[in-house]
């Protein structure tokens, strides 16, 4: 193990390499440019492929091509670029191809700005592209967690044969923190275990990878199978962290960068004897619905804090089935909620 100081985007790129990613295609967009820059240098060192594509659309389709040959493949971008990738993500889902897509969010809508934001939550958790599909969404809150979740993202993508998104924001991508990395860059040769890839029909029947299902009832049947898979994921792959679930009266709900600020808020208020806690969803889809619902005994009110105008707050309400009031505090367009602002909001609600 070695301790290094890197920015979040570079940690993510190195973690992908360590997770066995050997194909990366991307297009420059701020604030994630350190990822393609790092990959362009690192991929040739490990015998992998780096391509600077002519567009986000092309990049995600290159990933589609690499994935169907069995390679662990990734693309990354930031909000406006992720909008362009939606067509490709829908095809990945329709063809049941694994891939990791990284969104280091910036402010929107439109060209917005390059400041950190969490306003792509709807797009990430609702599918974003066309059709009846889901993608797993993982939201790291620290650089060390980027290491763990990037590995997990590739493993989940392969086991469920579907796109997995890592959802960060500009702050997480740009800031530096010490992280512990494993020494070895070698992991299992995953392609060996994939019995569905296209690699030429030597000694076997030809294979077809497609998402066009024209037969009577064929697509409905396929979508039902996808739903079965998604339900299995909902049961098995929920991840979240809960602080003071046992006695909190007010429960903050926040993910990623904002959860770090909320953690400080909890510490400050607990020192004053106030019963405040935090739920930090790590998987945004599947969302920790049961975990939140289990808290509705002692928790009197929930306060969702986001760097958006209020998106995850809808999932919190759905999760607890509106059993308790759910409040919202958010900053948008590059604004970051401060500890003082959040405390003021809590005092308004509770005290």
């Amino acid at each position: 193990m070695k301790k290094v100081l890197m920015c979040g985007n570079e940690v993510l790129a190195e973690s992908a390499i360590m997770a066995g990613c050997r194909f990366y295609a991307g297009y420059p967009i701020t604030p994630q440019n350190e990822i393609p820059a790092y990959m362009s240098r690192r991929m040739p060192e490990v015998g992998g492929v780096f391509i600077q594509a002519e567009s986000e659309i092309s990049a995600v389709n290159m990933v589609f091509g690499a994935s169907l040959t069995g390679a662990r493949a990734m693309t990354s971008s930031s909000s406006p670029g992720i909008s362009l990738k939606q067509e490709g993500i829908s095809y990945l889902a329709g063809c049941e191809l694994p891939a990791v897509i990284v969104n280091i969010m910036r402010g929107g809508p439109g060209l917005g700005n390059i400041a950190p934001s969490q306003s792509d939550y709807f797009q990430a958790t609702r599918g974003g592209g066309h059709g009846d599909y889901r993608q797993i969404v993982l939201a790291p809150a620290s650089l060390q967690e980027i290491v763990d979740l990037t590995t997990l993202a590739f493993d989940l993508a392969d086991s469920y044969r579907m796109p997995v998104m890592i959802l960060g924001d500009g702050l997480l991508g740009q800031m530096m923190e010490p992280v512990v990395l494993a020494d070895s860059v070698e992991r299992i040769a995953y392609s060996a275990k994939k019995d569905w890839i296209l690699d030429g029909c030597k000694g076997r029947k030809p294979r077809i990878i497609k998402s066009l299902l024209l037969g009577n009832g064929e697509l409905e049947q396929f979508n039902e199978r996808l739903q079965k898979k998604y339900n299995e994921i909902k049961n098995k792959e929920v991840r979240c962290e809960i602080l003071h679930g046992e006695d909190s009266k007010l429960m903050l709900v926040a993910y990623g960068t904002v959860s770090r600020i909320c953690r400080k808020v909890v510490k400050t208020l607990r020192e004053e004897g106030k019963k405040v806690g935090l739920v930090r969803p790590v998987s945004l889809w599947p969302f920790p619905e049961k975990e939140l619902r289990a808290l509705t005994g002692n928790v009197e009110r929930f306060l969702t804090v986001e760097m958006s105008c209020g998106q995850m707050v809808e999932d919190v309400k759905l999760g607890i089935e509106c059993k308790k009031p759910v409040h919202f505090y958010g900053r948008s367009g590059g604004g970051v909620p401060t500890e003082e602002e959040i405390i003021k909001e809590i005092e308004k609600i509770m005290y």
Partner: protein
Amino acid sequence: MEPIFLKPNSLRDVNTHYCAGCGHGIVHRLIAETVDDMGLRERVIGIAPVGCAVLAYDYWDFDVTEAAHGRVPAVATGIKRSRPENIVFGYQGDGDLAAIGTAEIIHAANRGENITIIFVNNSVYGMTGGQMAPTTMLKQKTSTTQSGREQKLHGFPLKACELLSVLPGVVYAERVSVHSPQNVLKARRAIKKAFQVQLDEKGFSIVEVLSQCPTYTGLSPKESVKWVGEEMTKQFPLGIFK
């Protein structure tokens, strides 16, 4: 008695969905024959486009995937870079290559990707019901150019081979046609040459195939081959561009 003409191994023994007189079946067969002749069936990976030829994967008997509309060259790039030992070809129609996928084809060609593109130009959109294609001829009537294609309103027919051949990454670009037996044989030779360029790891190769769409040119199969041979070849001259 010894058979003198057989179905290629790389072509499944099934009926196609193509209209009477359509050229796609001929081009599918030429590819299958080439793959057999060159002993590539177990190495080849094909990419079917969005459009009439999307079901090509039901007809070829080797590994085939499908790509989103226009994205064939990007998908081919991802496959070939991951598995350089495979022979990767994309099959594209005129809307796919010359309209929605212009960025993908130009950049794959310009990177000199070691892939082969078979580009079927039949001057019209088939799958969606006969709309104007980027290669629709001036004055040609389609469901979106009902009085005929007019340059001021709809622009000029796009010449993909001419456009691509100026790029240094392109090693081989030829336009052929399947409107007569003689031309079919020439098309077969061109497809073989394109695959050979890839086998020799020289870079990007493209064969544009002029083909007939009797249904949406409003002609009989017999008239439509005549139209391709006499009219289309004026706008899209046959030959080796590079």
